[in-house]
């Protein structure tokens, strides 16, 4: 009977405070967090959750393992938080991949990967080029022939601008002797959205992770034309891009990093844990299921690889010069806003006035209290700041019962703290 036990565990997790029983000194002595610098459901999130799953199920880690999502700006927002908030605390590790290198460059990120402590590269994911099942292109060569003849007519659908999909298209174009400004690349916010565009026949061809789109090929909606790996995938007759005569190979790797200030002891622990995970049968099965290549690499070899890969990536990005295609939309909106304000001022001349008499003191006080709270609560702690906030707001709005207000403020901030920090473990200051 696993169920009652599970239920019990479930209730326990929901109700319990922080897990108890830290072993002093030995690392790790509190829960481990895997930070995925992406939204739930994306590639990095998926990798983080699979690592979490194996670390728990293979009993590699004794403490609980959690996944935290910090999405935004190709992962650089998560990266920035990772190196500042977790400095000297290697209980949090960052899951990242090749795309991060490009994002650091294109977003002019203040933080780079050199500030992290690289732990291990875990896997390679290869890219695939796919067309809708009813496309006229039967082979990659046919596609490239048309691409050479009239590049703009071929619309390529894939992930975000400057990401792996985009880089692959640019590498193909370069190998085919076409300048990068003649690529008609249409960025989508994710592989799923791009898949819809290809399946619906809205773009001529799509680029994404091989494993991610394989189900759509199996269900007969897409057809793979080529893969970006060195060799063909086992059990799949899809040729490589190299076989078509274009020398293009692209591996999208994923890795794990520790924060700055990680001790040698903690680093050794992490490397050992990741190695044990990699050697486990369940990890090998995950790799197979997702068509990922085992590319485990750690220690100085991995550091060397990262340095080289960073240079290579910058070279590729520069050489192919992913030309930004600025849009006039922001100006259109700006001019529209100005014109509409003018219209309002002219058409309602004399009729524009405030509808009420404003109590400036009340407004100023309330605005100041809220702003003060926002700026200070991370420094003076959630409970105290929030109690003061509720109390002061109530006073400003005309409440005059001291004792009651203090009590209610305490109860509200206390229960908010309980729900978010203790139950949901949202990490409040």
């Amino acid at each position, binding site marked *: 009977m696993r169920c009652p036990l599970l*239920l019990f565990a479930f209730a326990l997790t929901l109700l319990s405070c922080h897990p108890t029983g830290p072993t002093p000194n030995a690392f790790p002595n509190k829960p481990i967090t895997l930070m995925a610098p992406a*939204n*739930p*459901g994306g590639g990095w999130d998926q990798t983080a*959750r699979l690592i979490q799953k194996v670390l728990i*199920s293979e009993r590699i880690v004794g403490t609980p393992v959690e*996944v935290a*999502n910090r*999405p*935004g*700006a190709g992962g*650089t*927002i998560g990266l*920035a938080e990772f190196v500042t908030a977790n400095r000297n605390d290697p209980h949090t590790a960052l899951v990242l991949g090749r795309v991060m290198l490009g994002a650091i460059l*294109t977003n002019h990120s203040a933080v780079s990967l050199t500030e992290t402590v690289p732990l291990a590269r875990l896997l390679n994911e290869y890219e695939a080029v796919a067309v809708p099942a009813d496309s006229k292109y039967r082979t990659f060569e046919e596609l490239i022939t048309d691409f050479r003849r009239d590049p*703009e007519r071929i619309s390529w659908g894939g992930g975000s*601008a400057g990401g792996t999909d985009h880089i692959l298209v640019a590498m193909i174009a370069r190998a085919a002797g076409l300048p990068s400004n003649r690529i*008609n690349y*249409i960025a989508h*916010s994710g592989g*799923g959205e791009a*898949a*819809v565009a290809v399946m619906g026949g*809205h773009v001529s061809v799509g680029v994404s992770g091989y494993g991610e789109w394989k*189900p*759509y090929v199996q269900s007969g909606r897409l057809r793979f034309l080529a893969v970006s790996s060195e060799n063909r995938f086992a059990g799949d007759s899809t040729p490589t891009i190299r076989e078509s005569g274009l020398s293009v190979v692209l591996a999208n790797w994923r890795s794990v990093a520790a924060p700055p200030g990680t001790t040698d002891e903690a680093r050794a622990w992490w490397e050992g844990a990741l190695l044990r995970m990699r050697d486990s049968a369940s990890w090998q099965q995950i790799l197979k299921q997702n068509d990922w290549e085992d590319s485990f690499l750690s220690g100085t070899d991995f550091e060397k690889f990262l340095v080289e890969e960073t240079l290579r990536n910058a070279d590729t990005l520069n050489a192919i010069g*992913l030309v*930004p295609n600025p849009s006039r*939309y*922001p100006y259109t*909106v700006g001019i529209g806003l100005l014109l*509409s304000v003018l219209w*309002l001022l002219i*058409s*309602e001349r004399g009729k524009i006035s*405030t*509808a*009420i008499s*404003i109590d*400036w003191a*009340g407004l100023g006080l*309330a*605005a100041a209290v*809220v702003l003060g709270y*926002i*700026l200070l609560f991370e420094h003076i702690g959630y409970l105290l700041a*929030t109690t003061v*906030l509720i109390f002061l*707001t*109530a*006073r400003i*709005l*005309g*409440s005059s019962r001291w004792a009651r*207000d203090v009590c209610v403020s305490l109860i509200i*901030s206390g229960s*908010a703290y309980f729900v*978010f920090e203790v139950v949901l473990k*949202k*990490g409040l200051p």
Partner: protein
Amino acid sequence: MESITQLPGHLFTGFLTALSPVNLLFGLIGVTLGTAIGVLPGIGPALTISLLLPITYGLDPTTAFIMFGGIYYGAMYGGSTTSILVKMPGEAASVVTSLDGFEMARQGRAGAALATAAIGSFFAGTFATFMLMLLAPALVNFALSFGPPEYFALMMLALITVSGLSGDSTPRAVVATAFGLGLGVIGIDLQSGQARLTFGIPSLLSGIDVVVAAIGFFAIGEVLWAAATRAQAEDSVSNIGSTRMTREDWRRSWPAWLRGSLIGFFVGILPGAGATVATFLAYSAERRASRQPEKFGKGAIEGVAAPEAANNASAGGSMVPLLALGIPGSGTTAIMLAAFQLYGLQPGPLLFTEKSQLVWGLIASLYISNILLLALNLPLVGIWVRLLKVPQPLLYGSVLAFSTLGVYTINHNSFDLVVVWFLGVVSFFMRCYAIPIAPTILGLVLGPLLEQEFRKSMSISVGDPMIFLTRPISAIILIVATLVLISSLRTKSKRG
């Protein structure tokens, strides 16, 4: 889903699966949790499911998905509660609800508003599940027929609906919309990867979240308004009124539920549209269908019934591309897709045949979730309205505490709170000068979609704008949008 004759058999086994004690229990946990997190701002169903994932590894996948389905539907029920009571939308999809819902609460009709939201959600959720069961594979082709030009046309239609949110002054509504579109420009441009209007602040790179904006505009704006008008404020305790719907409420609600469900479901199927767009469309359609459109924004029950039905139906609709195609149509279905993969399952046409117990168990459990949610939420109405008995100064203080907390937990970034504060101050002044706020939110939601879909379309056609008119679906939607625009300008000029 090979043929319609097998449907009763499948459904029967589905109910057998869903009604097993363990599954029923987890379904109940799911709907309760879902309702709770729907009420709290910031924590959405996607985040909750991702928090629960590690706990569910040991469970049977069917049981886990029954719980996730309950959370998803439950969040759509709960989202309306704080929108109606204190104008603090818990989810982006319940922003529209607060327009008339909060007005109803101020008039002492919070109970009726909450009840029509709950019953409408039940109706819409059941309707959407029924459609999902019957038509999922057929609807996939409908979803795939929407490319960038069609999405652009749909977003234009949604933008035109702004005329239904504007009150009496067209220039004011246009100013508000343009401001919203401007806010939508902030962040990284998807097509070029370039940052725009971010002023070098990294936190702005991902743009302004709709929930963050809605909380700033509504919750913070409302508190500042109360502070600035404290001398003119009436008695602090609000009138609670009846918690039941009158006969008149029922008569006005049910057509709104029906229309809202239809719109929500079909918009929900489209992976690129989203529940928020569905609620705006449903609200506007309801206003257009009403014989008293002037009552909208002043506490019309249809203005609550339609968008609340739409957001639940859209949750059901977004299960269509998830189950039948393996494509997520919303943030929540994206994490559900990830969960499928964690269990080693691949959603898609094969899922219906290979894992028919899971699929039918899930579909049956969605029906059960809806019943559980109705049974849970109707009695809660009576408890929720009592919140309004809290003296207003303390209520507003707590609204501040919960709304800032909700925003903070989205990204763990106190800069988001500065954005919220700034937008709250802006919304205060907008309100002073009678500039409506809803069009700004609509502009913020639609702006990025409009721009991206337009540019994708123009790329596909290599610069030929005729693409919007040569494709039938896009042409039809654009014609409808034009007709709507003309008719609304006409009624405006007649009144003015």
